[in-house]
């Protein structure tokens, strides 16, 4: 176990001379705490697998450094780094039994036999693989094979971190839940640093203490699930996390007021100085906008449809050219399609060029 620091780390698959905008991973400096459970969340092609492969050493960075406990390991090969990684699709050594598969990473490192046996037994018990230890691994189902891959990742006790690259893609939805909670339990039990790559926000939010959101090769925010929900640092985080995503609409912001479509909304903080020439937007989660009967003090909207999610209803409304999602209070009925929107000022955020602007209280 160790702390992992990334220092100005960047990578381009077409070499260091490629234009900065084409980099698969744009320069990032950050720290992964020892023993943390991290999720790397982002859409396909945002650079999260690249970042993972850089940490494990499968890819050598175009620039920047990786430090394990302050020691520069950037030039070391994957074998020499103390790291484990589980891939998206199961990798099984065909000729070996389940037990031999689990023992393989230990055997290659010359761990004493007795210790291997004990460790394999422990991991097999944790993953419910114990009854299959003497079976050939080839004929097992995809689920079981992926469990073996997970087991190989977890079997070494001395690793700096275990990296998971969308490891549950091939698993049945029902088993997915079980395995995810199992991983979480394993994290507590084995006290390993885990980094979990996924494009599924539920998976990320349930697994991790810290979620790192990536977009277009950049780390846009890293924080607890609650922070990502309450205070997205980037409009991308706003609409990528949450269902439905955050409402982001262009607005004129002046001091404690925002104007949308000729209507003024009060803000909780004072935004005196905004960057000149920036694109100004306000963002508010649908959970903090309520639909109400039309009234003179409210932003008027046209209801287009209402989605009933069971526990909660969301209205899709239109204000001028912008679209909103807003909460429909219990018992609310619409006489016609007209409604007013009630905002919770504490949860209205202001964004300049997609980045959060901190107001003054």
């Amino acid at each position, binding site marked *: 176990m160790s702390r992992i620091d990334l220092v100005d780390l960047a990578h381009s698959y077409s070499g260091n001379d490629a234009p900065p905008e084409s980099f698969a991973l744009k320069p990032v400096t950050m720290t992964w705490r020892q023993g943390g459970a991290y999720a790397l969340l982002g859409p396909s092609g945002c650079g999260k697998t690249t970042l993972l492969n850089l940490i494990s050493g499968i890819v050598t960075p175009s620039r920047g450094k990786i430090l394990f406990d302050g020691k520069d390991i950037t030039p070391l090969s994957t074998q020499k780094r103390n790291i484990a990684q589980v*891939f998206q699709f199961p*990798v099984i050594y065909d000729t070996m039994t389940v037990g031999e598969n689990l023992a393989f990473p230990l055997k*290659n490192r010359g761990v004493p036999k007795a210790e291997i046996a004990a460790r394999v037994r422990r991991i097999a018990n944790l993953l419910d693989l114990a*009854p299959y230890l003497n079976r050939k691994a080839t004929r097992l*189902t995809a689920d*079981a094979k992926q469990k073996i891959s997970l087991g190989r990742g977890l079997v070494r006790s001395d690793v700096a971190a275990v990296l998971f690259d969308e490891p549950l893609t091939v698993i049945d939805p029902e088993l997915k839940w079980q395995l995810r909670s199992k991983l979480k339990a394993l994290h507590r039990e084995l006290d390993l640093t885990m980094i979990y790559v996924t494009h599924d926000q539920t998976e990320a939010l349930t697994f991790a203490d810290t979620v790192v959101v990536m977009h277009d090769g950049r780390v846009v925010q890293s924080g607890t699930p609650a922070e990502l929900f309450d205070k997205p640092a980037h409009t991308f985080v706003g609409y990528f996390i949450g269902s439905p995503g955050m409402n982001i609409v262009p607005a004129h912001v002046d001091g404690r007021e925002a104007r949308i479509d000729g209507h003024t909304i009060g803000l909780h903080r004072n935004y005196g100085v905004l960057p000149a020439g920036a694109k100004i937007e306000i963002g508010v989660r649908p959970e903090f906008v309520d639909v109400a009967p039309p009234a003179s003090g409210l932003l008027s909207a046209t209801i287009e449809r209402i989605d009933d999610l069971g526990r909660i209803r969301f209205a899709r409304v239109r204000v001028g050219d912008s679209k909103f999602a807003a909460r429909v209070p219990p018992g609310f009925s619409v006489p016609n399609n007209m409604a007013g929107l009630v905002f919770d000022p504490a949860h209205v955020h202001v964004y300049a060029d997609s980045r959060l602007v901190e107001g003054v209280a």
Partner: protein
Amino acid sequence: MDKTVNQKAWFLVLPVFLVVAFSAVLPLMTVVNYSLQDTFGNNQFFWNGVGWFKELLDPTTDLGERFFASLWRNLLFSAIILAIEVPLGIVVALAMPREGWTVAVCLVILALPLLIPFNVVGTIWQIFGRPDIGLLGYTLNSLGIPYNYVSNEFDAWATVIVMDVWHWTSLVALLCYAGLKSIPDAYYQAAQIDGASRWAVFRAIQLPKMNRVLLIAVLLRFMDSFMIYTEPFVVTGGGPGNSTTFISIELVKIALGQFDLGKAAALSLVYNLIILIVCWVFYTVMTNAGAERPQKEGSV
């Protein structure tokens, strides 16, 4: 689902049956017919029963002695070239580049020997090995290593074996290369993560994944080498003495040299049967070695 009953289908496969009948079944039956009879020319045939087969399988007779001698020679030859070509083919395949323009260059160079007609291969080596004008033969003799495939049995064997290795290792290498190319990158990455050595990667990933193509390579090379005729015939003519007379060369001598149709037919049938049996044994052994004992589909 019910099968569609359609008798018209028979008419559609009939041409194939006819072609197969005339090209394979009828000639084979003719051979069976010859093997049971004796002839002294003039298209006169006399019933001989299984006489030729008895003689063939009895090493004390002339025919039996020649058959067994050439059979052992042939088996030894196949064993040697398999022992060389399979490991060598694997090594060549492993050493080949995975990507870039060099791949095409390697593939073309490897394919060259495979594209040369068999008797041209024989002629190339026949001239190459000649002590008077051949590059190989002249060089070896000049270096003080006596080499003459016409008079020395060992030299003759060495020439025939090296020629076959030169001609066919490419096939094994190309098959193995195809097998290697089909291994997803994730396997190599996982092996790196697991700290596997080069040898461990070969044992745990590459060899098991090449299993299937190796089976095909061994079968093809066995059959071809067991039926070899043209190249040794062109180079050594089966000599010196009978030292490189393989079964097919012996067969041609009996059938066309002595015109003993009955003996030749009996030999052909036994020859054919041996190839079938050995291939079947190979196939069964190798498929069983690849797949483990039957077990239930496991869900964990």
